[in-house]
């Protein structure tokens, strides 16, 4: 039982990370019908900006643990958000009216560019967040002990996702984002500036991905310029599982994928961990190609 709970917690933690990244894929896809292949690299950028702040600059030593972490989260989200905005301006906006394929190629190019830029800035070797950055405290719930860090990470991710849900469903801009995702032309007829909606989405998505990068650094220690590839692919899978374009779907898909991976690694085989992810993807694509929570666009003529 203890082993199961441990793996379950691991699954939730990694699932929350996948969900945070998946939100970026799914929001951009929802509005632009484009897979932002550079999203995984924005996640990596978040991990490295976090590294610069926490390890190189040692912010927690200067201003204290709580405040240092809070500043790091805000700065990482802000800077990666800016990077996402620049990416949209440079790589996607000029191609808005071109062939869909042109944007895909541009996305792949941006991904390679960012990966190499990160490698040139921080080197090709693994970097590690120092192990003593966070105190390793455990809390005990129902007689089982859980690492506080993982619980905090899970809660942070849940809070961020809740905030996003409220933003999308309860604010004016959120309403515009949803409308543009359903029908861009009709949204324009309502007086919505779709270009600004896309710009907003390209700040929020990358910001969430950046936070996920910081969390991975804090949680697993090791980061590398190529880490965005596998995380990106997994999160993309999570977005598909949940139904791409659907925000709740990305959250559910991410958590589900994390649990499958952690429990699969524990009870089936660690070596098959990554393969399991894609087995789930293939199964979902065969049985429910639109994902678990597809965008329900009930059209009636």
């Amino acid at each position, binding site marked *: 039982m203890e082993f199961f709970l441990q793996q379950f917690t691991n699954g939730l933690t990694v699932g929350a990370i996948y969900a945070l990244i998946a939100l970026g894929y799914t929001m951009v896809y929802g509005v632009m019908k484009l897979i932002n292949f550079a999203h995984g690299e924005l996640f990596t950028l978040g991990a490295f900006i976090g590294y610069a702040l926490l390890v190189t600059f040692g912010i927690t030593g200067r201003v204290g643990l709580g405040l240092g972490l809070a500043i790091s989260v805000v700065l990482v989200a802000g800077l990666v958000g800016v990077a996402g905005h620049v990416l949209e301006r440079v790589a996607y906006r000029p191609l808005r009216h071109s062939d869909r394929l042109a944007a895909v190629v541009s996305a792949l190019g941006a991904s390679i560019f960012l990966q190499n830029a990160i490698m040139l800035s921080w080197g090709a070797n693994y970097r590690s967040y120092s192990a003593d950055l966070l105190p390793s405290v455990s809390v005990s719930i129902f007689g089982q002990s859980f690492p506080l860090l993982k619980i905090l990470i899970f809660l942070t991710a849940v809070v961020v996702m809740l905030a996003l849900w409220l933003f999308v469903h309860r604010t*004016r801009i959120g*309403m*515009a984002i*949803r*409308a543009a995702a*359903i*029908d861009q*032309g*009709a*949204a*324009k*007829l*309502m*007086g*919505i*500036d779709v270009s600004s909606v896309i710009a907003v989405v390209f700040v929020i998505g990358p910001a969430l991905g950046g936070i996920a990068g910081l969390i991975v650094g804090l949680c697993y220690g090791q980061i590398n310029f190529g880490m965005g590839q596998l995380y990106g692919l997994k999160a993309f899978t999570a977005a598909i599982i949940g139904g791409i374009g659907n925000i709740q779907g990305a959250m559910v898909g991410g958590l589900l994928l994390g649990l499958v991976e952690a429990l699969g690694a524990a009870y089936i085989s660690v070596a098959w961990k990554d393969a399991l992810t894609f087995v789930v993807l293939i199964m979902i694509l065969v049985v429910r190609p639109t994902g678990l929570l597809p*965008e*329900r*666009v*009930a*059209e*009636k*003529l």
Partner: protein
Amino acid sequence: MLELRDVVVAYGGVKALHGVSLTVNEGELVTVLGANGAGKSTSLMAISGLLPLSGGSIWFRGERLDTLKSHEVVRRGITQAPEGRRVFGPMSVEENLRLGAFTRKGFPHRALKRVYELFPRLEERRGQMAGTLSGGEQQMLAIGRALMAEPKLMLLDEPSLGLAPLLVRSIFKTIRSINQSGVTVILVEQNARAALRLASRGYVLDVGRLVLEDSSANLLDNPQVKDAYLGSA
């Protein structure tokens, strides 16, 4: 109030409008008739700023319109209930209406009240997903949504399409009352007879060219129009 001067619109290399000129005066209800592919919807989309012009210009109250972005056009007071209604299916009726008032500041109490008065049916279904409404209700929603911004000029693209005759009559009655309340209306229709009874003037488009323009009474009597658009009456 609105003037199209030699407007040319092309999709890729294919011209959909070959230099269309028309004028709409303040307070008028003008209809634009024509067969499928005549360029009626293209004209409306060009006015709304969703299609770029390849030639000519569009003017609204002395200001050039075709260089503005679509959201700026809405801010000038021009809204559209597009062909096929294009309601936001997965959103509620009231959310659809609130989106119609997107360019307005604050919660649109007054506009919402007015739309619910015009279409009590929409108030009954305010919480329902727009995609689950019947065709007629979706059309009411599309028109109501276009009213929410309290426009000066409203563009209606085939509001009668696919509706039962009784419903068409009621929708047309509503369009008349909207016009009488001071909103200028351009009504694009295939249902020429009904549209001409409602409008004071009409234009006839054929394959991207303006072929006729006259008062509704004259157009109803015009043998060419009778043959092509009114059936043998």
